[in-house]
């Protein structure tokens, strides 16, 4: 089979998937969880419970705060202890609902059995409503509310549903594990989303370094006799799982600057999202669990794990349960090493999109001192958006906002390939990130004036 890939840029970091053989273990319940109201892209959710209320697992505790927002459910059963600001992993204050765990009672109507339900509801609206009510968001990183993406604006037609199983970030293995252990559920989840998108073809894209996942997903599709869904092997190349890159690789189409995937007929959802959709629609189970990898280059092999965790469990609880911060760890990251966030607050709670606790050694993560740009052009070669980071760096230094917009700083997807490949260790993305935000602000204000 010919391996698909995106047409421009990219880098080849060592994939470091040390935890790939670690089966998913269920993380035991802690005494208390903190459920963030901002665990999706868009407006934070509004709490609808009060301090002292008893809540069951799977019960709604917060409603969407806007069109682009999502329901939030209690991941545990217990008593609401407090509702108020708490620091997230970057150290910013965000409203959290604190729940003291009492037993493990689930809300009525949630099917917790392992029985595979393959029959898909016929009505599109029913499915969409279910996905929305269960608080399903994209679990590939951006946590964009799934029902919004699955309901294209009038006039836009989905021509291909792409299930993102690339997991191109080094170290992470949670998507890999679910594709092996929950392949049939993911396949049904994909079929459900296909149904919502009026039966458009579906492609499950998986990187070549995960042949077991390719086999498991292919077997699931043929066992279930699913129509119009196929697995395609992608080259191992970062950022293969970037939305725009994946569309380019699978459909050979490119989303124009400022446009949406649906403009070229694409809808991309992560493999973990497909699982969440399955659980929501077939089992009536809201998104209150996810899979997370505990890994790192300084973590011994027998301490690598993949956990099924309840959302809201503090990172510190998982770290302690998994044996504490390993010797030699210099940085703790939530997410992958290319786009994940460094943890500034170890007591922060996990959210729907939490995908890993990654320990990196000083040797692999410490930034080296910046030196002069030698104009080697490696950053431009690596940029999957075809930008020229060295030039953006110069324009930023000159404060040239018009030049930055002209050189498309707003198209940056913050994948980190430029900084990763710079031999002079110039913090390109560190500088481009705020410049991109500023230019986007300028574009936005200009559009409002019109």
């Amino acid at each position: 089979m010919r391996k698909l890939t995106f047409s421009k840029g990219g880098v080849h970091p060592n994939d470091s998937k040390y935890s790939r053989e670690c089966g998913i273990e269920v993380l035991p319940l802690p005494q208390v969880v903190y459920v963030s109201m901002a665990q999706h892209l868009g407006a934070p959710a509004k709490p609808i419970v009060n301090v002292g209320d008893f809540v069951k697992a799977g019960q709604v505790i917060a409603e969407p705060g806007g069109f682009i927002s999502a329901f939030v459910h209690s991941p545990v059963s217990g008593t609401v202890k407090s509702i108020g600001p708490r620091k997230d992993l970057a150290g910013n204050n965000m409203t959290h609902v604190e729940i003291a765990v009492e037993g493990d009672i689930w809300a009525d109507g949630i099917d917790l059995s392992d029985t595979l339900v393959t029959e898909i509801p016929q009505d599109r609206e029913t499915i969409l409503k279910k996905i929305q009510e269960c608080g399903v968001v994209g679990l590939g990183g951006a946590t964009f509310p799934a029902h919004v993406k699955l309901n294209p604006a009038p006039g836009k037609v989905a021509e291909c549903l792409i299930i993102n199983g690339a997991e191109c970030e080094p170290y992470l293995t949670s998507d890999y594990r679910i594709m092996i252990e929950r392949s049939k559920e993911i396949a049904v989840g994909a079929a459900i989303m296909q149904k919502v998108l009026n039966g458009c073809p579906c492609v499950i894209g998986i990187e070549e370094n995960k042949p077991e996942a390719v086999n498991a997903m292919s077997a699931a599709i043929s066992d279930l006799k699913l129509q119009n869904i196929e697995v395609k092997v992608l080259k191992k190349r970062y950022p293969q799982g970037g939305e725009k890159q994946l569309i380019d690789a699978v459909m050979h189409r490119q989303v124009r600057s400022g446009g949406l995937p649906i403009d070229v007929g694409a809808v991309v959802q992560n493999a973990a999202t497909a699982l969440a959709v399955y659980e929501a629609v077939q089992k009536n189970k809201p998104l209150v669990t996810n899979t997370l990898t505990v890994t790192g280059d300084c973590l011994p092999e027998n301490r690598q794990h993949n956990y099924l965790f309840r959302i809201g469990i503090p990172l510190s609880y998982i770290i302690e349960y998994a044996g504490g911060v390993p010797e030699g760890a210099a940085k703790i990251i939530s997410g992958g090493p290319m786009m994940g966030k460094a943890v500034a607050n170890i007591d922060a709670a996990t959210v729907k999109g939490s995908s890993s606790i990654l320990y990196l050694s000083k040797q692999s993560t410490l930034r080296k001192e910046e030196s002069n740009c030698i104009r080697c052009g490696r950053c431009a070669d690596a940029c999957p958006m075809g930008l020229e980071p060295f030039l953006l760096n110069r324009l930023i230094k000159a404060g040239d906002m018009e030049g930055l917009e002209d050189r498309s700083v707003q198209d940056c997807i913050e994948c980190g390939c430029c900084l990763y490949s710079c031999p002079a260790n110039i913090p390109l993305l560190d500088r481009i990130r705020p410049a991109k935000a500023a230019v986007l602000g300028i574009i936005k204000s200009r559009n409002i004036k019109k």
Partner: protein
Amino acid sequence: MMDKMLVSPSPHIHAAVSTRTLMRDVIIALVPAIVVSVLFYGWSELLVLAVSVASCVLLEWAVTKWLLHKPSTISDLSAVVTGLLLAMNLPCTTPWWVVFIGAVIAICVAKLTFGGIGQNIFNPAITGRVFLLISFPTYMTDWTVPQGFITKVDAFSGATLLGIVNEQGAGAVAGLDYLQTLFLNIGGSAGEISALALLAGFVYLVVRKVIKPWITLSIFATVAIISGIFCAVDPATFTGPLFNLLTGGLILGACFMATDYVTSPMNNVAGIIYGFGIGFIVMMIRYFGSYPEGVSFAILIMNMAVPLLNRAFHQHKYGRA
């Protein structure tokens, strides 16, 4: 526990590449040509190499420390590369003090005046070489072949093949054995002695992805096409493609000097145009100029066009077809 942890923006890992590793690869790529030249030219060649490298490194260290008051940059090995390339552009009979003056011009004037590595407009080694060529023409065109380590040739003062053509016309080199030229071309600077050794280094750099091949191939193609046309029209006056590709400093220039990151364009298309410019100027100087060889001049002239090429050519952006 947490106060000992690092917190910084993504990405959290970095490729195993630095300015130092890139320069180290260039040095490795030059090793075959250096070994051949030392074997054939002996102690005098070794002396030129040693003086050149030592002067370049020392000068960079001294100027950054005492004049610029900046942290030393010698550990990035770029001064070593400049030193090696300067030496490989000089006759092995060049007196040590002339080599030192070349290093002063290369490092102090061409490189550090503009702000050090990455900031210079002109290739430092070539600037140093051209300065010496103009200031000390007698030393710079003395192609005496001394006693090497594995040669038994008695010292003779010969002209280079290009020098012979410049004075006597194309007919003087009609019987040249090109296979011999490919391996060994005695008479000339260290960088001209073995085309094969230089090409091996070039292949190493391309395979290691240190450089892209386009600039070099564009120069070779331009030289081959122009000399092919001229030679076809008038073979008695104009030398042919093989002669022009294999003699003089073309291979050294095209593989190691024109591909210098700092002084060449960053875009591939611009690189091909840049290479065409160099090839064209080389052939014009060789055919019609008063100097027998023009690779250094061609590269310096095209260095000046690089800012314009960098402005004019940008890579194709995603989603903006």
